[in-house]
């Protein structure tokens, strides 16, 4: 089984205790599957019901398939401006 690196920022990096997570990935796994796996980790209490996920620097839907080489990030509620 391969893994994918998930980048974390701001409050999420604090809650999970670091800037990245390594998440096991079955072939054909989707963004939704990834979020489901992350929910079992300590620190996941910080995640809202439907956290925003970016794949290759674009917001992704939960049914998008993830490749181990993708640049994946969990995006906390944005607060620019």
């Amino acid at each position, binding site marked *: 089984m391969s893994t994918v690196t998930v980048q974390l*920022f701001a*409050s999420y990096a604090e809650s999970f205790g670091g800037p990245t997570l390594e998440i096991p990935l079955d072939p054909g796994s989707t963004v939704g599957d990834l979020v489901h796996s992350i929910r079992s980790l300590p620190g996941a209490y910080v995640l*809202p019901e439907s956290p925003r996920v*970016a794949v290759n620097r674009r917001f992704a839907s939960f049914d998008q398939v993830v490749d181990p080489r993708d640049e994946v*990030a969990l995006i906390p509620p*944005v*607060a*620019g*401006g």
Partner: protein
Amino acid sequence: MRRSAIVTRAIDPAALMAEVQSTEFGAISVFAGTVRDTNDGRSVTAIDYSAYTSMAESELESILAEAQDRFGVMGIVVEHRVGTLALGDVSVAIVAAHAHRAPALDCTRFVIEEIKKRVPIWKREHYADGAREWVDPTARGVATT
């Protein structure tokens, strides 16, 4: 012309205006977001801004392309600052130039609202009592700038 950037230095809105200056424009609209001394009833002393920089730059560029299509602005420049900002510092500046005022004004409003929805930038406020907290606009449902 069109330019957007995440910067770590002070933002000079006058310099951004100079970038788009042209005699073909009758209006240059400038929006500057600044660090306020209170939020949600608490006394704020500073704000740390951080970003997923590569995605933030690409989202800013997408927003500006959409703004140019929508409003026909001929010049548009945006800078957003990251790092620790003091009270009164400019955190974001948007400059939009058009032959007429309405599209220029509407454009700056559009760009700041889109930034608040979709550009991966976060802020952690420092409070007078020593606490520091991440700002979550989805939790309070109130604009913070």
